[in-house]
């Protein structure tokens, strides 16, 4: 065994260790697709808000105002839910296509671990925010979504490309700043769930060639 062989063996070991402990086949396009869903969702949310403000100034006071507010919350909830669902589906589809092209397994110990660790903070956050909605506490929902999503990404970053960790840190920071600028929440969400994903996806696409 000579020097070259030892080097090869060592890099083989490193590759196998990486491949067996992390799911590395996330596609950059899935980030871009999720970002587009995020932007579309924010635009739709903006429409809903404008309509609400329109009908409020058209004389929605007292009981009418309260009804309008309930309707607004319900509609925004629907927008957020649908956006999340579309983004999730597009990430799964693009990642599946990506792994199939490379003849790699999409459902293995690595992707299982990634999903479990992504969803622990995400589900905890989701239930927490639903509890806030139940108590009619609407001020921090947007910021809370960003923070919990960021925490989920930081946690998931241990089981996939480490770059996800930085995306997560940015989302957390954005959510925390958003706490102090409540009236701009929708813009913060558009930036965090839309633009950041697109930029991240493009960087990944360039860095890992796909």
């Amino acid at each position: 065994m000579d020097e070259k062989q030892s080097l090869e063996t060592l890099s083989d070991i490193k590759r196998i260790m990486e491949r067996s402990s992390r799911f590395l086949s996330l596609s950059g396009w899935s980030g871009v697709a999720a970002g587009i869903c995020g932007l579309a969702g924010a635009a739709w949310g903006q429409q809903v808000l404008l309509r609400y403000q329109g009908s409020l100034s058209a004389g929605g006071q007292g009981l009418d105002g309260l009804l309008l507010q309930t309707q607004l919350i319900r509609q925004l909830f629907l927008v957020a839910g649908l956006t999340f669902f579309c983004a999730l589906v597009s990430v799964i589809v693009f990642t599946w296509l990506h792994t199939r092209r490379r003849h790699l397994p999409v459902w293995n110990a690595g992707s299982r671990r990634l999903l479990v660790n992504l969803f622990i903070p995400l589900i905890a956050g989701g239930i927490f925010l639903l509890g806030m909605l139940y108590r009619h506490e609407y001020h921090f929902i947007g910021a809370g979504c960003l923070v919990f999503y960021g925490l989920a990404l930081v946690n998931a970053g241990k089981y996939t490309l480490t770059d996800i960790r930085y995306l997560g840190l940015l989302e957390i920071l954005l959510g925390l700043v958003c706490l102090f600028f409540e009236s701009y929440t929708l813009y913060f969400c558009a930036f965090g769930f839309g633009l950041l994903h697109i930029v991240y996806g493009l960087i990944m696409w360039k860095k890992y060639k796909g």
Partner: protein
Amino acid sequence: MKNPIAQLNKLFESRIRLGIMSVLMVNEAVSFNDLKQLLDVTDGNLASHLVTLEENGFIKVWKGFVGRKTNTTYSVTRAGEKAFKQHLEALEQMISGLR
């Protein structure tokens, strides 16, 4: 200094055995099927290498059930961990020693 070649472990000369150890070093417990998928080898080939490693006390075998199907998982022992680390050190010494 001891000759690093003498420190290399004969058991790890096989790429598959080295691969098995690499996977088990960074994962607590790995199933037979996951090992097969990761290392891209046939059932028989993998099984025979696993037996060799087990007989040498480098890995532990856990037999369990998922429903009615057997689910065998493997993890590394203290001795296996030590041997693997020594092997890695020897490899590194060979690279730096010859420079």
